[in-house]
């Protein structure tokens, strides 16, 4: 009977704390770089969030002369107008920055249509008024923040507040660096990418919960074991699962990136980063952080005990 290939012949015996200072430094550096880039460069918001007009058009008569079209469109005085080829030389993506009001966006759309004329068919038209864009940003932030709080609440209830806090910090780390990467690379951030960020958060929690569950189980089994060894043991014991599951997801995401077409590119790219950084953060951020918090806690307890002992002659 074929039993399947084991990727790991035996349970590994790695010490994940050996590099934990280096990893903390790396994570902090990544987060800082993200924050700095977000603060200085900001995000390249798509039309969803920034407001404005997005048109994907295909010329039915043949390749598009983008340079000529660019000069005609810039004569319309609509502010920042970006044109780019999209997929094939017959396809064009036009982005116009947010206009002052909903009415002026209507007018701008009609004028662009007049300039393009009848030779084009419209594959996609998005017009987002200034108000709606702002609302989508606020809704998105609110929804993500509340769901993170919900996760923290549940994990704190199940595994104690230290695990909850470290888990959420790991998720924040994953989301922040994803958003930061989009800022640094200047990739467009739209609603699909937001969905990807939320997916990453979900994936990262799942990973963290699996290891936390094993830690809880081992704590009951080995009551005397040092917490650091306990965490190492738990991560090692679940390593076979981590390699299998995360490997599978990584492959699925690569398929999405490779075959998903230009519309799904931002989404798949965010997921790719998220799977990698999510796996890393579970092992090298959440676990050591929980250990740190526990160590500080225990030191405090000892101090209090010592004080109590000193109080009694």
């Amino acid at each position, binding site marked *: 009977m074929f039993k399947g290939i084991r990727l790991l012949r035996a349970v590994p015996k790695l010490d994940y704390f050996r590099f934990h200072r280096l990893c903390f430094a790396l994570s902090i550096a990544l987060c800082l770089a993200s924050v700095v880039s977000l603060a200085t460069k900001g995000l390249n918001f798509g039309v969803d969030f920034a407001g404005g007009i997005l048109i994907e058009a295909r010329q039915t008569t043949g390749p598009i002369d983008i340079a000529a079209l660019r000069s005609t469109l810039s004569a319309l005085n609509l502010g920042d107008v970006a044109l780019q080829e999209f997929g094939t030389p017959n396809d064009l993506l036009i982005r116009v920055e947010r206009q002052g009001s909903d009415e002026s966006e209507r007018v701008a759309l009609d004028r662009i249509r007049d300039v393009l004329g009848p030779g084009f068919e419209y594959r996609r038209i998005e017009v987002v008024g200034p108000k709606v864009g702002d609302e989508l940003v606020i809704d998105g932030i609110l*929804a993500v923040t509340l769901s993170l709080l919900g996760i923290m609440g549940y994990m704190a209830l199940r595994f104690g507040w230290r695990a909850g806090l470290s888990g959420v910090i790991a998720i924040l780390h994953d989301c922040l660096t994803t958003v930061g990467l989009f800022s640094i690379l200047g990739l467009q951030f739209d609603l699909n990418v937001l969905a990807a960020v939320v997916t990453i958060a*979900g994936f990262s929690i799942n990973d963290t919960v*699996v290891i936390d569950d094993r830690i809880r189980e081992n704590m009951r089994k080995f009551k005397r074991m040092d917490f650091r060894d306990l965490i190492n043991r738990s991560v090692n014991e679940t390593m076979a699962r981590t390699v299998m599951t995360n490997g*599978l997801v990584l492959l699925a995401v690569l398929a999405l990136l490779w075959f*998903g077409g230009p519309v799904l590119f931002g*989404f798949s790219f965010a997921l790719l980063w998220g799977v990698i950084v999510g796996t890393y953060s579970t092992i090298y951020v959440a676990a050591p952080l929980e250990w740190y918090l526990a160590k500080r806690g225990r030191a405090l307890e000892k101090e209090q005990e010592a004080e109590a002992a000193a109080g009694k002659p």
Partner: protein
Amino acid sequence: MMGVTRLRAVIVLAICFVGVVMAIPSLLPAEKMAGWPSWLWHKQVSLGLDLQGGSHMLLEIDVAHVQRERLNNLLDGIRTSMRSQRIAVTNLQLNAEATGVSFRVRDTSDIEKARQAVRELERTGQLATQPDNTIVVTFDPRELAEQRRRVLSQSLEIVRRRIDALGTKEPAIQAQGQDRILVQVPGLKDPKALEEVLGKTAKMTFHLLDPNTDPAAGRPPEGTMILPADKEVERDGRARQYAVQRRIAVSGDRLTDAQPSTNSQTGEWVVSFKFDGQGARQFGNVTRENVGRPFAVVLDGKVITAPVIREPILGGSGQISGQFTAQSANNLAVLLRAGALPAPIKIIEQRTVGPDLGSDSIEAGTRACIIGYLLIFTLMIAGYGLFGIIANVALLLNMAFTLAIMASIGATLTLPGIAGMVLGLAMAVDANVLTYERMREESAAGRSPLPAIDTAFNRAFTTILDSNLTTLIAALLLYMFGSGPVRGFAVTLSIGIACSMFTAVTVTRLFIVGYLVWRRPKLLPV
């Protein structure tokens, strides 16, 4: 054995069968479903506009407009009435929240007369007199709120009539919040016609022109307003201006019909209209008394045309010409037939996906998903052999259940929704991987197959439950507080997770126990 009884097995298999049957329609193209026997389940998952192509428009109605108009009318009414009764008033103004009007009567002896005059103008308002002779007219906030609701529901009705007149298939029109209407029209090639009929208030009125006022000369006298032309332009490219009497000669409310047609002499496109009895009488009177003078047809504050009245028009029907194309004449006729909106409207968000881009996205998405699935299937078999095949069956069932549930609750599948399915799929795979790895561990610890499997399922189940509940909580919060696309993601994710609890745990367990009973292996085949 292991909590698996014959009855239980039958129930689980029956549920699987039902799930698969319910998912089949969603996997078939719509054309094939046409020949589907009516007694069979035929609900399909509806695709979002981003996948099937179509237009999504969010409209905002200025619901407070009617209220403001009513207050302004009251303000004008009070001014005229006080002047005609020679009551001296000061500080006539709208209050700060625009919910009432106040003014001060100079002479205390006039207060009763002033109150009487206001009563005649406005019956529902509440009157209060302050010690300094200020009379305040306010409206009940509940009544105002009721009025705003009425504006929204009337607008909804008129928007529906306009879209129906365009003859599109299956439009979805619904109110959102207190002042918004969401319109979703699937499968539209060019949304221009939709934009044109949705973004206009379509308030049409007929006015006489004021021949004594030069439109270019500063402030017009009271009773006259300067309006721009809709299409006509001056030599410098700016819209032509007209001096139009404020008084409405005939209102567009009195129209009973409007149709696009061509003028038999010039061949240009016109809109023919017909008034009701009262409108026809008014129109007849105005045209009889003003032969030789120009009058203006005004639509949403713009002069469409301003012809000279050549002869009295007594039959109550006429034509409007205004440099129309076939399309724009038809759109105006649609608007006039559906009636004017009670308040101004504007499009604040529009998303249109052409039908072929939608199908391109589905094709690319489907291809990517199938390849992803195949990779996962192969590796699960490579990694876990027979049990890998069982996990793959469970995964397929998971997908079938997700589609079946989405079809039966009428949920829409969007691009972010596919993302949710992907995460749900990953978590379903993870549930199987967790269980199998645990079996290996237990088996390595020296347990014989049966106890090893039993322990593995029990231990892995707590982990699966924890991770699924955490994700489910996050998904529910996303659904409650997120908007459109994020909600689509949350729905498919929640359904996928809920299904995986059944497929990856119950169904897998049933198959594995079935295998054990059948083959009775000495060693765990994993």
